[in-house]
């Protein structure tokens, strides 16, 4: 690893790189944390409504997406592990993870389309809800999964750029490790979104 000023050793430099990324990820956790806190408050106050609204979501499509994301995280971890020693494996793993990310977004789009058809998308013409809290739950669902999808899209772009430029201008170790950390965090957020939104059924 190449050392830059003002760090006396490469280890210190790596530690600083990592800490900066961890603090950024911490701010991301607090951003989603506010949405989780809102979901928790809604659940405490309107348990039956939340359970009914959660039951309208497609448990199996959400579960398939969880499998897709967990698998993509495995590929990113394998790719980061191959860094520096097996560049071709790194490219293959990051490309596979990016493709899985795109597959996740496709499944998500299919879900959104179904929810639109069922009148579960707030703000659309034929949306109808059994109660106010149920509409609030669906608002929260679209806000949280939409924000997550934006993060995932950025992650896909990041992985594609890193994989495609590896042939002529390989990224630094810090760039690869930090991109991997970002992808895993997006995975961790979905790990909590899935039970909070899909599995809180009555």
């Amino acid at each position, binding site marked *: 690893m190449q050392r830059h000023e003002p760090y006396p050793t490469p280890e210190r430099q790596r530690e600083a790189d990592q800490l900066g990324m961890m603090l950024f990820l911490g701010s991301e*956790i*607090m951003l989603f944390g506010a949405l989780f806190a809102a979901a928790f408050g809604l659940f*405490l106050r309107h348990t039956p409504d939340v359970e009914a609204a959660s039951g309208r979501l497609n448990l199996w499509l959400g579960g398939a997406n969880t499998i897709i994301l967990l698998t993509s995280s495995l590929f990113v971890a394998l790719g980061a592990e191959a860094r520096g020693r097996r560049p071709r494996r790194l490219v293959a793993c990051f490309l596979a993870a990016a493709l899985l990310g795109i597959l996740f977004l496709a499944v998500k789009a299919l879900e959104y389309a179904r929810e639109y058809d069922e009148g579960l998308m707030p703000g659309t013409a034929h949306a109808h809800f059994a109660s106010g809290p149920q509409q609030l739950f669906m608002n929260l669902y679209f806000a949280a999964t939409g924000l997550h999808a934006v993060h995932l899209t950025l992650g896909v772009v990041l992985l594609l750029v890193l994989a495609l430029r590896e042939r002529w201008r390989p990224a630094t170790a810090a760039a690869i490790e930090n991109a991997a950390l970002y992808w895993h965090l997006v995975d961790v957020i979905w790990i909590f979104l899935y039970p909070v939104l899909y599995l809180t059924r009555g």
Partner: protein
Amino acid sequence: MRARSLILVWLALLLLLALSVGATFLPIGGWRHGISIGVGFVKAGLVLWFFMKLRTAGGLARLSVLGTLLFLMALILLVWIDYASRSSYRGSEIMTGEPNTGSTSTPFS
């Protein structure tokens, strides 16, 4: 970390996912929500520890994760305290317009 260990972690994550989906079909009342969230914490722990390399990370990185968790807990805890204490608050009928029944709505009922 070797590739084989990473694949084992992935298998464990898939098993835990199956467990949390399975738990939602059990007739155990509100506790199944607790199980699916609890399993989520275990899964997140596995991803943090093995995929995000906290296992081999230095103290500074671990401390930053711990700090984030602390702030997140404060956020969730304060939301919980607010909702849990609302209906037992004297005069809450004035605040919310709802009659004070003296009972709180608990998540596991």
